């Protein structure tokens, strides 16, 4: 079975700068894939390229193993993108939702399709008569989603779908896209800053940083610049006066990452390990990880460490407790600039 979408050696430049560089990426049909990463990491660019709304500078996008380009007539009828700030045509809600159906040459059944799409996103069918400027931000986003769901796409890409909407709209959006997957097998690709939302919703999460896919999650990222002491060790001072020691960075401004699995919760340093003291701020259980994840605040940084379930029994890791984190500087990896 071919993946629904596949990228191969895709590179995208903007103003002479490479903003996306992906050697290989596959998205299986019927799955929910999350895209996580800080601002400027390339999430929106990747969504545009996957949805064929933009052409990559080099590389190939495959739809079911067939190379496709923007304006490919078949691909455009299968894939739809909901941008972060969805644009509504200066028309009624009905015209906005039926637009995609009309340009596909469907002549009848608009009314039923529009009403069904509105209900899917939790809006009353009477909304159909409203104009684009009579909607709140959350309603506009739901109407934009309804316009895409009316097309019953094979793949729906959503860019920060709940970033600027109220809780009720966020709940309706989540329910509608899950229903689309269940009813029509729609593949969902969602870019979001909301890590817990992605953790909860997605089958797979792809972490992007500077346009590249990371092998690990984006927790425990330490941004430069790095200083050097008179023992030629590189370090960074946290807000509470503690120091994080790192191996020599490729660049003084490079960003480092400590995988949550290599952070140990222990009482005292051993061998060449370094320690940090922090306060537990929360314990999280996540379907993507077999072990609970402990959030620990050290100065102005929040670290995430994985611990076996059994370690929770003693109550030493309850929120508010002070704990010691230890790590080996050699386990710290560098993110490419």
């Amino acid at each position: 079975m071919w993946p629904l979408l596949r990228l191969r050696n895709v590179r995208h430049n903007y103003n002479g700068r490479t903003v996306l560089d992906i050697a290989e990426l596959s998205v299986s049909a019927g799955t929910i894939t999350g895209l996580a990463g800080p601002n400027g990491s390339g999430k929106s660019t990747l969504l545009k390229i996957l949805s064929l709304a933009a052409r990559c500078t080099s590389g190939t996008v495959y739809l079911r193993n067939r190379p496709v380009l923007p304006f490919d007539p078949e691909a455009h009828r299968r894939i739809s993108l909901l941008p972060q700030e969805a644009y509504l045509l200066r028309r009624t809600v009905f015209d906005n939702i039926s637009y995609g159906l009309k340009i596909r040459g469907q002549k009848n059944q608009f009314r039923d399709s529009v009403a069904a799409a509105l209900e899917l996103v939790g809006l009353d069918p009477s909304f159909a008569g409203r104009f684009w400027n009579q909607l709140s931000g959350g309603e506009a986003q739901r109407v934009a989603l309804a316009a895409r769901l009316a097309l019953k796409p094979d793949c729906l890409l959503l860019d920060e779908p709940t970033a600027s909407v109220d809780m009720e709209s966020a709940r309706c959006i989540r329910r509608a896209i899950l229903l689309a997957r269940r009813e029509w097998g729609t593949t969902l690709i969602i870019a979001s800053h909301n890590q817990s939302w992605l953790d909860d919703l997605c089958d797979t999460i792809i972490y992007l940083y500077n346009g590249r896919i990371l092998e690990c999650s984006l927790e425990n990222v330490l941004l430069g610049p790095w200083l050097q002491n008179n023992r030629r060790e590189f370090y960074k001072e946290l807000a509470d006066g503690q120091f994080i020691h790192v191996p020599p960075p490729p660049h003084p401004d490079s960003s480092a990452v400590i995988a949550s699995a290599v952070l140990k919760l222990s009482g005292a340093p051993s061998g060449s390990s370094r320690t940090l003291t922090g306060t537990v701020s929360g314990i999280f259980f996540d379907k993507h990880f077999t072990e609970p994840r402990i959030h620990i605040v050290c100065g102005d940084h929040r670290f995430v460490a994985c611990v076996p379930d059994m370690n929770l029994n003693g109550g030493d890791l309850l929120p508010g407790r002070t704990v010691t984190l230890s790590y080996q500087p050699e386990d710290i990896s560098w993110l490419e600039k």
Partner: protein
Amino acid sequence: MDFILEGIAKAFVLLLQGDPETYSAVWATVQAASMSMTASLLVGIPLGYLLGYLNFPGKKGVRTVVDTLLSLPTVFIGLIVYAFISNRGPLGEFGLLFTLTGIAIGQTILALPVVIALTATAVESLDRSLRPTLISLGATRMQIFLTSVREARLGILIAAITASARVLTEVGISMMVGGNIKWHTRTITTAIALETNKGEFATGIALGLVLLAIAFVISFSLSFLRRRA
């Protein structure tokens, strides 16, 4: 002051009695303006769309040229069109000199930069997310063009109104290319100029009132369409 008031009174009489000379000028004006506006909108809207939508090397230069052409003097356009369509000109064989079609050609050249420049501005001011939105809904290039034009309809409407105002009120082209021939190519503006020279203020004022009425209808239509848009 009395002769002005007398002129206004006589003007109403002429209009209400259906003075054939006055209405001939009105009809010639409407015919020439209709032809020129149709041509300038058909050519100007796609060109303005491309100028506003596309990014290409030399775009700023093209934009500067179009903006410069906004202030083309009508007598200069009249002179150029006259040179081209007179018997000695390259288009002389078509017999366009002293015809309403000849006037319409000149007026199209006058209106075209206005339509292009204002359409380009309207398209440039469209929301950046319109294109990805339309692509994501499966629109083809032609559907993107037609929908974008519809989204920019208010700006394009203003372009059309501004261009038609320029066309309706110009004298130079109508005078030089049309020749101000009675019953034939005499337009409202050339008739006003002639009647004023002759001291016939009543006819001049009557025609001026018709121009004002046309301006009012256009302005009223604009505000009506703006509300609808």
